[in-house]
């Protein structure tokens, strides 16, 4: 697989966001599984990450348990909430909640696609937007399926390194 070092590093960084979420939030007793394949002709990298934890919607409902209405929140609406910047089900300690948002931005710029199945929820994010819906089947865990274009034309890197960055 041939990609520029910059694109390779950006892909690795965003994928870490998924693995971090899986290990930190899922509570999967049997770990996290991942696999991938590079399609040379299409220059597409497909990556899948699955955990068998409680699932995103169950996690959100559990986090909001002090509100009796939380039990009736739909999986799609919970998924939608989890994908917004700054939302997290771990409100103590260090700040969290930007990982999925960074990944989402990357997918859009890259003209890639992210699909997620978790509990009854399904979500799809691509350069045209994002859509979340409820399904009739339920999956106890979370499955991410990501398609990335390994073509630097879809990702405009600023070449410069900030000598001194103003925070």
């Amino acid at each position: 697989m041939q990609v520029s070092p910059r694109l390779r590093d950006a892909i690795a960084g965003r994928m870490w966001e998924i693995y971090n979420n899986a290990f930190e939030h899922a509570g999967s007793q049997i770990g996290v599984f991942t696999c991938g394949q590079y399609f040379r002709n299409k220059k597409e990298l497909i990556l899948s990450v699955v955990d068998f934890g409680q699932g995103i919607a169950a996690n959100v409902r559990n986090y909001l348990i002090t509100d009796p209405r939380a039990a009736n929140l739909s999986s799609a609406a919970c998924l939608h909430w989890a994908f917004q910047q700054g939302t997290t089900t771990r409100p103590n300690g260090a700040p969290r909640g930007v990982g999925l948002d960074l990944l989402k931005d990357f997918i859009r710029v890259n003209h890639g696609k992210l699909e997620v199945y978790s509990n009854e929820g399904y979500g799809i994010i691509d350069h045209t937007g994002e859509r979340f819906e409820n399904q009739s089947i339920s999956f106890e865990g979370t499955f991410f399926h990501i398609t990335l274009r390994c073509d630097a034309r879809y990702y405009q890197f600023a070449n410069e390194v900030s000598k001194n960055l103003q925070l």
Partner: protein
Amino acid sequence: MELRILDLIGPRCIVKEDGQRVYEKIHPVLNKHQTVTLDFEGVTQFASPFFNFSIGQLLKDIIEEDLRQHLQVKNLVSDGELVIKRVIENASRYYKDVDYRKIVDSILEQQAKESQ
């Protein structure tokens, strides 16, 4: 104080444990209102857990203006810049009180839109 991240952590700034190591070195210095420079030369991969723990966590007891004044960052590639800026923006909101009721309201509002 200047800290070379490549020497302390290596070329990948990803996990929260590494972020915590940086935090423990710089927090006492910044608390004394002294300047800290983080040099990212040679660091190539970035993810939010590292910055959440190294930088975002500082906003727990240091006000944002002081942090921006006393924390200098240099030789950071554009991908790292994207992550660090998003983390600081998020962290300044993060330490406000969580309103669970408001969260449920916003999810229910989304749910209502779905069923239309």
